[in-house]
């Protein structure tokens, strides 16, 4: 086919999207392979959703190039759409339609041939665990079921690339677990799955991760690579009393690379873990801070992100919106 | 709570824009667009005779400010086509024996064809034509009597001396504009409020609001106070435009205007609130709000269509239409400037409505929480 590029399922080259003066996506470049689960990790407003929406052809890029399933998103939007699936955080289904009617509708939108459609709808119902509920109104389904139905609707045409924009927000942990099993199953079948998330545990399930902050791509690699290579030194957990002054005091100690508040404790990055565990309690006590616990811990992706950007991923998020 | 609603209104500048621009538009459109007066009626003339007498009669039609002579035709076909296609509203046909019959048979008729589609305009147009022809007849007769040497004023005439009160020039604008204030209140109040709560149901934010320790009265007042304020601002704007732009007289006091407007706003906001509590779909709420607020205010309040001309059943219904009382009061405040004593009955009716609807609204919300 003319213009088709088969080396990668998604290839993005210095993609830029501006809304007026605001730059939502700032020179982002990466490529994915078929069958890969590719995660976007970053706080709200980091440009994850905007990037996904550009790749789906919902937004036009201001500059740069994006090729999805071999087609240019700016020039061949229709071919791109025939080869992708998309599911947003709202699980946008028609509440007044029955389960099977929603599936039939989306099969129709993707022009899935009739003889294939029926079999695939049955598969989708089985996959979503909705057998016996085919004729329920979608409005009556619980969040986890709605979410799996939405996924079922977006893969009826067997897309090569699947975009999931925060697919698990507002869903209980068990449903999230089941949902990720489905994603792994699909990736096993050769589908490239793009997931944006701000859940740390979910990020760990991805083959590769792109960390995004203020529109820019700040790091790219497997979760382990990110944790090993990007963390300078070792990480210590410190429980101190009082917390605020402790943070300030630690930041002034030459042995400390960085310190940040995590919950009710501090995460302290040091060059030498063994030396720091012995020297720091005394140093803190000198300044009138009591340290109840100080021990090395394995770094999380959140630690990596904080070290790279100075920001928390979930900070500032409204808890129940 | 009220502050949250105000912030939401401000964040949604389109709503605020609409709430404030709507009365201005409404006033401009109705102030300029609404006129029941018939002037410049397009006139066609078919003079079959072409005598001195027939021309004298036609000259009087041309001289009348109510008629604009468009064309003189010489066949029925053209005349019919003109009325069919709205080029003419009224056509005068003078028969071929007009002057002959006037001389010999003393009695002659002029045919007046009028497009009856719009009955009001047709009525006015026929009346004007009748006046022109009647005056011609009187003058012709006087002239004839004089020629016969008979006493001219023999028997005398009756002269009508009209004295119009309240709306001296009989301007339809003065009659329509006071009612528009009621129309605008009905709109801003009921429509915007009825949608705000339905929106919270549809988006699921209402469940969250309920789970907070806020009382139902607080929810209601918080939701309604901003709209109450907007309503009063809108009323002030309407009155200002009516008085300064359209020169509608304002003879009452501002105190009585704002007191009764506040009563009306309580009723209309209460109704809007109850609708939004009862109906959780925005589409449904908006349609029901239209049916119970705007439609009766437009049709059954006497705003434009006189209540005493309605059939008895409909007239009976207008007594429960709360806007009927407000429109009566508004027209009195603008044009009559009469005191509270003359308006006691409608003011009492409004006050009773305000108390009943206010009480029902405070209780309606509590029930839905269970």
């Amino acid at each position: 086919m003319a213009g088709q590029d088969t080396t990668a399922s998604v290839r993005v080259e210095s993609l830029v999207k501006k809304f007026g003066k605001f730059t939502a996506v700032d020179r982002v470049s990466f490529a994915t392979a078929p069958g890969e689960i590719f995660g976007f990790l970053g706080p709200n407003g980091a440009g994850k959703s905007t990037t996904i929406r550009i790749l789906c052809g919902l937004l036009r890029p201001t500059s740069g190039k994006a090729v999805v399933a071999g087609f240019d998103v700016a020039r061949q939007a229709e071919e791109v759409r025939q080869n992708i699936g998309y599911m947003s955080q709202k699980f946008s289904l028609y509440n007044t339609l029955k389960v099977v009617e929603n599936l039939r509708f989306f099969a129709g939108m993707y022009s899935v041939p009739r003889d294939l459609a029926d079999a695939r709808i049955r598969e989708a119902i089985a996959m979503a665990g909705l057998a016996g509920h085919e004729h329920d109104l979608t409005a009556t389904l619980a969040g986890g079921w709605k979410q799996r139905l939405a996924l079922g609707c977006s893969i009826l045409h067997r897309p090569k690339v699947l975009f999931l924009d925060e697919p698990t927000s507002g869903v209980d942990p068990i449903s999230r677990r089941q949902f990720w099993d489905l994603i792994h199953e699909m990736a096993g079948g050769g589908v490239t799955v793009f997931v944006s998330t701000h859940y740390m545990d979910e990020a760990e399930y991805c083959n590769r991760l792109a960390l995004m902050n203020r529109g820019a791509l700040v790091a790219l690699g497997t979760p382990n690579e990110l944790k090993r290579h990007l963390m300078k030194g070792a990480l210590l957990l410190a429980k101190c009393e009082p917390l605020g002054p402790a943070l300030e005091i630690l930041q002034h100690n030459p042995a400390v690379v960085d310190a940040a508040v995590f919950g009710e404790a501090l995460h302290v990055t040091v060059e030498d873990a063994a030396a720091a565990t012995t020297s720091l309690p005394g140093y803190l006590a000198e300044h009138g801070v009591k340290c109840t616990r100080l021990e090395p811990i394995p770094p999380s992706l959140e630690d990596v992100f904080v070290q790279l950007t100075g920001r928390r991923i979930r900070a500032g998020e409204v808890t129940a919106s | 709570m009220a502050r949250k609603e105000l912030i939401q209104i401000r964040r949604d500048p389109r709503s605020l824009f609409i709430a404030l621009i709507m009365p201005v538009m409404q006033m401009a459109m109705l102030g300029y667009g609404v006129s029941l007066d018939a002037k410049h009626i397009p006139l066609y003339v078919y003079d079959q005779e072409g005598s001195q007498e027939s021309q004298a009669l036609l000259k009087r039609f041309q001289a009348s400010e109510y008629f604009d002579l468009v064309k003189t035709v010489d066949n029925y076909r053209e005349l019919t086509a003109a009325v069919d296609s709205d080029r003419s509203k009224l056509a005068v046909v003078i028969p071929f024996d007009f002057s002959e019959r006037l001389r010999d048979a003393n009695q002659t008729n002029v045919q007046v064809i009028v497009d009856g589609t719009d009955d009001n305009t047709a009525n006015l147009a026929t009346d004007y034509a009748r006046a022109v022809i009647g005056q011609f007849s009187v003058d012709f007769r006087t002239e004839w009597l004089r020629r016969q040497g008979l006493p001219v004023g023999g028997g005398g005439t009756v002269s009508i001396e009209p004295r119009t009160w309240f709306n001296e020039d009989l301007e339809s604008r003065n009659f329509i504009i006071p009612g528009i204030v009621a129309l605008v209140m009905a709109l801003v109040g009921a429509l915007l409020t009825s949608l705000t709560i339905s929106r919270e149901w549809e988006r699921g934010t209402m469940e969250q609001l309920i789970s907070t320790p806020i009382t139902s009265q607080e929810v209601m007042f918080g939701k309604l106070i901003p709209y109450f304020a907007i309503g009063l601002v809108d009323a002030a704007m309407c009155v200002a435009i009516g008085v300064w732009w359209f020169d509608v007289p304002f003879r009452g006091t501002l105190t009585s205007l704002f007191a009764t407007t506040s009563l009306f706003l309580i009723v209309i906001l209460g109704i809007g609130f109850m609708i939004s509590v009862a109906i959780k779909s925005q589409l449904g709420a908006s349609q029901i709000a239209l049916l119970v607020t705007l439609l009766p205010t437009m049709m059954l309040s006497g705003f434009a269509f006189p209540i005493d001309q309605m059939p008895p059943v409909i007239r009976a219904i207008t007594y429960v239409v709360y806007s009927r009382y407000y429109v009566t009061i508004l027209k009195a405040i603008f044009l009559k400037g009469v005191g509270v004593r003359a308006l006691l009955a409608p003011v009492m009716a409004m006050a009773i409505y305000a108390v009943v609807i206010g009480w029902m609204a405070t209780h309606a919300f509590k029930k839905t929480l269970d």
Partner: protein
Amino acid sequence: MFGRIYHLLAKEFIQLRRDKWARLILFLPPIVQMLIFGYAATFEVYHVQTVVLDQDHSQESRELAARFTANGRFELGKPVSDERQIRDAIDRGKATIAIQIHPQFAELLRKGQSAPVQVVLDGTNSNTALIALDYIGQISAVFAQDYQRDYINRVAPRYEQLLPSVGMQERPWYNPDLNSQWFFVPGVVGTLVLVTVMNLTAFAIVVERELGTLEQIMVTPIRPVEFILGKTVPFFLIGLVEVAMVAGFGTLWFEIPFRGNPLVLLLGTSLFLISTLAIGLLISTLCSTQQQAFASGFLFLNPAITLSGFAFPIASMPTVMQWLTYVDPLRYYLVVLRGTFLKGTGMQVLWPQMLAMGLLGAVLLSASVLRFRKSLD
């Protein structure tokens, strides 16, 4: 392409069937409004509350007062005895008109002079007052003519037969009884269709935008034109059904004639619906919430109805307002409705209206499709 449109249509109809509010909007308000309009919307003037202050107590003055009672347009209340009572009756709205016959009324008449009758009018409702005043003028003119005839008869009987007069033969065409219902019912058909179809279209699209399903559809290979067709065709069909229903109900209930060709009405309705759908679509592209859609719809409807000639004659509007009416599709549709219902006119008369609606529809539709494409970005 047709497959996708088919699925959109099927979905739209299922949704309409399940949405009890949409169903209600389609049937209840049109019938209620038709009934209320049919009965309440009238500018006719009957039983005007009138009081008479007869200070003359002559045969002539009683004769004149009797003619007011006989006319049928006036409802005479208890006679009043002084001017203060007139003021009171009009202030309290007990009477719209007060007729005051002065003490020398008969004397002046007999002397052959002009005998004044004072008429006090409550001008609040200018239309009623104006028409009532015309009736009073007519009644007293006939009274004077008859009085004169009697007088000639007494002084010179042989001239009585010779007294010349010019009469008027009225021929109200299309609506011989000048019945208000005949004027309003066809107009209500047009107004209702405009309100319902425009609102439903705008809401249907804004709801999808609010829920996010619009985005979900836009990532499928569907083209914007297909989506627009899928969204508007159902409402086009609904509009046709609505016209048939409301017009059928109105004509049967109020006994309004339908004198024209149904095919001409069908063509006019179709052209009008294109403009209506386009406006609904345009509103949906400007709004992101239903509340906004509702308010914007209203912002459009208010002038569209006022300026259409639905109740107030376009000819009496100021010139600038008259220009504005040319871009109001309802203006043209009302001419088609009243033409086909009352006048029985056909294409040879109505083609300019059809052409105007066709042009407006084409312009509005292209504008809304362009805006819709842009609004997706």
